[in-house]
């Protein structure tokens, strides 16, 4: 049984360039359904996310935030336009290559159901590396685990952890591979405000101290205020861009969308 790495052509090497964005799209379009139920989720979205920065994507429900993130992360394919992750054009990659991309170059923190219930916290954290058959950088692991305050919880199963702890485990997992970019889809949506604040502070610290690029989808202005930059979306388009946002500026920008 071959359950090891899939034999496929190697990932395209990122083209060398100065200050390549962590992720970028060019005229990205995505349509769901057909006929009456046709929904244009993304309408020619062109956006670049700087490397080493923590960016939040905001917008009303149904504006296409999740769709954009799924396309950027290689979880979903676009209809037209192009997507680059860490300088690699991933628009035309097949499933096997996208899978490797996700395993090696991208990290995820989802809103819920982030962890495999049958694995311990530690096994969950090292899962992407184990999937690729790689070796865990134990020093890095220890550093992340310590800085996320998970050292005491490594042998626990997900159901023995609180919601906040579970999300922190997910963050640790996302950081461990030093990915080009970490994606978060409402990573604090299921948490109470204190746990949420903890996780958000962690994400900001990873970006500031470790230079980790992070793209986070949220509809919470408080959450967005932790980011270096907020990108606003409405009805499948980019409609705004805030640098160094705070809660108030985000709120007023959102109010401008009529949301």
């Amino acid at each position, binding site marked *: 049984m071959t359950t090891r790495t899939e034999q496929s052509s190697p990932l395209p090497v990122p083209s060398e360039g100065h200050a390549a964005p962590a992720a970028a799209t060019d005229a990205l379009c995505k349509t769901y359904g057909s006929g009456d139920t046709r929904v244009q989720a993304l309408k020619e979205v062109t956006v670049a996310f700087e490397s080493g920065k923590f960016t939040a994507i905001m917008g009303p429900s149904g504006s296409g935030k999740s769709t954009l993130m799924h396309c950027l992360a290689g979880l*979903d394919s676009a209809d037209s336009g192009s997507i680059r992750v860490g300088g690699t054009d991933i628009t035309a990659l097949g499933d096997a290559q996208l899978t490797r991309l*996700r395993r090696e170059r991208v990290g995820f923190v989802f809103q819920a*159901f982030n962890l*495999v219930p*049958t694995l311990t916290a530690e096994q969950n954290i090292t899962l992407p590396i*184990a999937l690729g058959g790689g070796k865990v950088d134990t020093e890095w692991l220890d550093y992340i685990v310590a800085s996320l305050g998970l050292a005491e919880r490594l042998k626990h199963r997900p159901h023995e952890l609180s919601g906040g702890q579970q999300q922190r485990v997910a963050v640790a997992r996302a950081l461990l591979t030093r990915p080009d970019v970490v994606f978060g889809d409402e990573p604090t949506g299921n948490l109470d405000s204190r746990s949420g604040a903890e996780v958000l502070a962690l994400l900001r610290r990873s970006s500031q101290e470790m230079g980790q690029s992070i793209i986070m989808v949220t509809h919470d202005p408080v959450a967005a205020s932790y980011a270096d930059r907020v990108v606003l979306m409405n009805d499948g388009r980019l409609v705004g861009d805030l640098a160094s946002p705070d809660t108030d500026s985000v709120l007023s920008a959102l109010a401008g969308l009529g949301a």
Partner: protein
Amino acid sequence: MLTVALAEVKAHARRFVAVGIAVMVAVGFLTATLMVNASSEASLANTVGAGFRNADLVIAPGPDEPLEPAAAESAAAASAATGGVAQTYLQRQAYIAFGAAGTAGFGVLQNLSKDTALNPAELLRGSWPAAGEVAVDEATAKRLQLAEGATLRLAPAGGSVAAESLAAGRDLTVSGIIEPSNDPLTMGQPQFLAPDAILDGLSPAESPAAVLNIQLGLADGADAGTVRDAVGAAVSAAGLRGATVNTAAEHTKERVAGLTGGSDPITPVLLAFALVAIFVCGLVVANTFSVLVAQRTRDLALLRCIGADRKQIRRSVLVEALLVGTLSSVAGVVVAMALMAGLVGWLRQQPDTAFAALAIPPFAVPLGAGAGILMTVLAALAPARAATAVAPLAALRPFEEARAGNRKGRARLWIGLVLTAAGAVVLGLGAARASLLVALPGGLLSFIGLLMCASVFVPPLVSAAGAPARAFGVPGRLAAVNAVRNPGRTSATATALLIGVTLVAMMMTGAQTARTAFDSELATQYPVDVSIAGPAMDGTALDARDAAAAAEYDGVAAAGLVTPAGFAEVDGMRTGVYRLLPEQKRLLQDQTLVLDDESVLMAEGSGVATLTVTGSRGEKELTVVETGSMAFPPLVSAAVADEVGAPAAGSPDALPQLWLAVDRDLDAAALMQLRADLAAGLGVEEYQLSGAAIERAAFNQVIDVLLLVVTGLLAVAVLIALVGVANTLSLSVLERTRESALLRALGLTRRQLRGMLALEAVLVAGVAALIGIALGVLYGWLGAQSALGAFATVAPDVPWLQLGSVLAVAVIAGLLASVLPARRAARLSPVEGLATA
């Protein structure tokens, strides 16, 4: 609540497909079984009626009271005179010897009816025989290459060699070719039809041709019932006693009943296997419904929240079971009927079984479907009870992994343990005393007990087997964990498979052990592999040229002609004593036997210390050395034979024998072929070849056929269990959609996902098969010991190759079972998977 149940079945029809298939197969098997007896009786009726196919009324002898020829003649005459009777045919039959073109044999000769309309066979070519003529059945005509106009010699069947009888026969001309009769009493034998005069001429006065029956044809417009009564009166008036007058249809029914003895040995056996299949199916159904209920915990809790009471919940689950059970049971009955119709249709196409007929007894349909529905509902009872235990609060709790609670199982475990222990003791006792009647209930009891305890030992074993899977990295580790994630589910799935595999392995080991026991027993029963007793069919004794010819056959290791050395008085009978040449000693089964010039080798239990051998020149008293064999002719050395002087050649009570040693690696089929070839080549009848190798081959063939049939029947249960494996896996995969999507998002490739699920299925199926094989070997050996221990020493003999292929089949089937669920899981994109709440 009915609407809920209906909606559930409709919305999740796919989840019920596998269970439906399992029920369908089990019900189909059961229903087909119920149709076998009726169909074989109907087929038999077709053959039994062949001899009076054209008659309207049949006057037949009563049981144990053959028709007196003279009385039958007058009864026939009286019948002919009865109003409404148009034709009469007094059917008679004699056994005769025939010869044509250098071939001789025995067959049956029947008389021709004076009224052609009542002739008991169909004329295919030529004409009905007149004086000096005979009609031959097509099969025989083909074999003897006889056409119309050819000459055939018929003679009364005198001795045991057809060729010898022929001297007293007469030559007849073949007038026509008739269709071979399928009547069970004559089927397969050479059949001839000739006018009465010829039959009379060929049946000696001391054994006249037997009267089979008197057949009557009715005049146009005559009423069968009225004429039957009139003929009945006429027949008794004519003095024919014990006879019955029946219509042809009634007579057929009576004869079928007489032939089957009213009993039906096949159906109970088939029924036992069908019940095993139904039981296994019940396990699969129960498991499926437990999984479905577990998956619907939140829905059920919601129903409870909005006011559904426990009874309603239970009823809702049972209604689902009823629905699924009814649909698939009906489908099963239909499939069974279609299968049987197809089978019978195919048989009808075959020349040897053209008489096959399909009969569906009225009870088969409701019984088959009813059993399936009942089984499904019963199997759903426990899951339905589990559904009622769902607390309304569960709806409000966030989704959690269902933890398998094991509180209720405790009582079952204890009962199972006690049953296992008690059964094992009884089984051991049965084996020790070599009593199958004791061992059988013991084995059954212990097996049921083990099945009840399956949840104790199956999950740990699967877990242990999963340890090496860690070598496959994360997917392997996850597969090993997932395989025992729901221990109850895993044991139920494995148990269903384990039952079939245990029974198959038991049969295989039992057969192999019995074979070995029988082989070693046979080795001592017969002096040599094959011995051929003379004379040849042409009456000549076997000679050295025959020995040389036999040695040339492929598979014959050595051959020797053992000639008489003289005679001796054994048990008051004049018995031939044979000479064993030194180079012939290697032909003997028992190579430890020593033959010197002062002793004679004799069969076991001769009861004498010395034997006096008398030859043509003198006699000699020899010390008896008993061999282990029961069928050992007295053997003396060449020197002794020379001393007493060999008797004149051709003495009929001491004909030379041809002894053969055959190659050790010859299998049963090859041996049977060798036997046929040798018989044909040496011009002897097959029965004249006997010996350890022949007996062994015959026994092995019987065992092989039985094993094949039994394995085929058990395969149904195994198939159902494998459907269960696929079903459990696919339900578990559904349950783990989000988890699979997460793993995919994190970098698990499609192939890794498929491999993971395949490994999970292989673990469960493989461990179930291994446990089943281990149990089967144990049961098979103990069973063989119980059945045969009284006659032979039974050493366990494990058919590794067969058991290995059982394991391979289980593993491959496990792999296949994972294909569909894995494909579905792998097709799902991570985004979609994460979206399903």
